[in-house]
């Protein structure tokens, strides 16, 4: 036996020790991680857990309103639990936590697109008595439609969103241009301004092109302005719409390549730093762009998204609603909190202090609201026109399957036709047979 073999044996004997060490340290890390979950202090009052995504703007406003609720309802304490702002991440949280049949929270803020799914799954309870039939017309009809499942209301609209066009008024004025009403105008204006400004950092048009829910919203905004849709309807027109989306980056070069990773916040920062002439975004960005110290304060305007001549576009309805977890043991108190947070007074406060758009229509002609947020007046018709994404319990299946396809279009890896073929096939699969037919059976 040579020396090398002998020492290999020697090493062989040590190996288990090394391995054991590695495994042991991994375990320790895992166990320490598990032990870190916090415990909550006992309390005699009823504690309502209110789960919602992080709101932008002044972080003291909502807690202040919740304290007001507690004063009006002695014995109730509301504890907020925050989720990340991204709609997709929040959905993951809810799907994982609600599926087990128990809910570690009582009231939850949900995206417009989830109400059907959550109601179908039995995760959220009916709220018919919170907003009786006769009072529903006080809210935007598209939001109420999205929240109604099997004829019953499962969530109350909290604030409402619709895709808007933000523009740099100062730059348009400098070149004698009007806010664009067609996509061609937009491309033209963006090109003229970017060429003339000679500013390497300036882009024409930023929008949400990352692979996530926001991409579906932008895509639908554009497709609907072409008189088309993603999952149904005219194929040729849809193809043109998708081609335009890609062309903004590849052909017209008005949108930067980084668009394929852009979401609401990154585009808001980009535009907010003065690096873009146009931006597609939700109304929440307006007060943030106009606040003290913002580089574009006083230089911007907001308009409905452009469309294609001959087609009346309709922006995508977004927004969040409040619901009560079906498994909550404090459903009555939870319902009270929903009633409170969606009441006219509180919606007014949220509109004025946080800049979110009220889901109640009357507030758009409310003097104190318009005083603080005059832009809401012009926003109203657009919000009224907005159309929801497909109202179906299968929406997440549709959206999740379509996101990678459209993202591949944005980076030039797929043609509009290939994307549409795939997306239509997915629609057949999720809406045609299986899930959809069972969706009816369960009610």
């Amino acid at each position: 036996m040579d020396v090398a073999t002998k020492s290999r044996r020697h090493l062989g004997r040590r190996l288990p020790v090394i391995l054991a060490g590695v495994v042991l340290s991994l375990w320790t890390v895992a166990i320490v991680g598990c032990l870190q979950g916090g415990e909550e202090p006992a309390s005699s009052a009823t504690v309502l857990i209110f789960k919602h995504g992080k709101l932008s703007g002044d972080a003291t406003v909502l807690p202040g309103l919740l304290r007001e609720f507690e004063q009006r309802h002695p014995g109730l304490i509301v504890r907020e639990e925050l989720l990340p702002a991204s709609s997709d991440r929040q959905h993951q949280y809810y799907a994982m936590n609600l599926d087990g049949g128990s809910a570690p929270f009582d009231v939850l803020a949900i995206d417009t697109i989830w109400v059907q799914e959550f109601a179908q799954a039995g995760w959220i309870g009916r709220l018919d008595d919170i907003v009786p039939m006769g009072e529903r017309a006080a809210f935007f009809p598209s939001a109420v439609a999205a929240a109604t499942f099997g004829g019953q209301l499962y969530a109350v609209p909290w604030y409402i969103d619709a895709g808007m066009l933000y523009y740099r008024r100062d730059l348009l004025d400098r070149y004698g241009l009007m806010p664009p009403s067609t996509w061609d105008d937009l491309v033209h204006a963006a090109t003229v301004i970017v060429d003339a400004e000679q500013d390497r950092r300036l882009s024409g048009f930023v929008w949400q092109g990352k692979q996530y829910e926001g991409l579906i919203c932008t895509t639908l905004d554009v497709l609907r302005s072409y008189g088309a849709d993603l999952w149904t309807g005219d194929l040729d027109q849809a193809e043109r719409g998708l081609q335009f989306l890609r062309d903004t980056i590849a052909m017209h070069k008005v949108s930067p390549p980084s668009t394929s990773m852009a979401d609401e916040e990154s585009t808001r920062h980009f535009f907010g730093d003065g690096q873009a002439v146009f931006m597609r975004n939700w109304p929440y960005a307006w007060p943030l762009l106009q606040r003290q110290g913002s580089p574009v304060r006083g230089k911007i305007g907001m308009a409905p998204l452009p469309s294609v001549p001959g087609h009346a576009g309709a922006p995508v309805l977004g927004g969040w609603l409040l619901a009560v977890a079906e498994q909550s043991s404090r459903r009555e108190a939870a319902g009270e909190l929903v009633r409170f947070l969606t009441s006219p007074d509180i919606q007014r406060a949220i509109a004025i202090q946080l800049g979110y758009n009220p889901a109640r229509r009357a507030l758009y002609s409310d003097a104190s609201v318009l005083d603080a947020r005059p832009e809401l007046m012009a926003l109203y018709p657009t919000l009224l026109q907005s159309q929801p994404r497909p109202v179906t319990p299968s929406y997440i299946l549709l959206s999740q399957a379509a996101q990678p396809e459209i993202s591949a279009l944005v980076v030039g890896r797929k043609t509009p036709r290939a994307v549409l073929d795939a997306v239509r096939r997915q629609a057949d699969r999720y809406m045609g047979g299986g899930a959809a037919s069972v969706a009816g059976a369960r009610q």
Partner: protein
Amino acid sequence: MSRLSERAWGYLLAAPAFVLLGFVALAPIGAALWLSLYRRMPVFGLDEFIGAANYVQLWSDERFWAACRVTLYFTTLSVTAELVVGFGLALLLDRLTSRSGRSSPWEQAMVLLPWAVPTVVSAQIWKWLYQPDYGLLNYLLLRVGLIDAPIDWLADPDWAIHAAVVMDVWKTTPFATLLLLAGLKALPQDLYAAATVDGAGPWERFRRITLPLLMPIVVIVLVFRTMDAVRVFDAVFVLTGGGPGNTTETLSIYAYKTLFQTLQFGYGSALATAMFILVAGLSALYVVLLRRHFQESA
């Protein structure tokens, strides 16, 4: 009792350990396999046995094959780089510390640091480094003139996966370094002395002594790192979320989204099972290679 053979006794005594192992390791795998034979979608109250239908669907699922390609590409690149860089670092550290006789805690800490940082945190840090306008990486590359316009590493479908590989290499090379360093420290010095006397140069010594003797460790590094890389999730998920255009969607990200975003438990389990088969196949390959290596050298 005494009639039981020694062998039977051995099995009997080891039985509790086997049962425990069975529960811990095999039960979840078995459960996933079982679930993969169902169409289970709790949102729709669906729970039906459908046999192999999920696997049939898997076979014609473009997204699945794309995810396999991304996963294997990621694994090959990152494991190779980790091994090479890890070996280099281990040799360097071995050199540094053999003179003083022992390594200083500082050196060890430096090497281990990337490994000790939770992946989610380091992925977030790398996301900032990759940021096109303010990120350090573009700043440095522009500074030394390697590029003349900022590159958006994560938004570009060609760069994104490589950006993830670089991050993974940074993060897990320490693991390779540490194991290889331990191996180097255990090598008998008299062999090197004898080889030097016989006139072998540094390269000869490395090739004829270090490399063959360290082979078992190399294989262990490969097995561990391959298994981890095939299952990679958080590093890529935080950096890109699978985008753009699914160019960075690994099998585990696809399985994760199927299981926890859209709650398709049956199909998601089929994806997870496919991933398990891939890992098992690769490990089996390594075991065969290792065995052959030992047989050849014995």
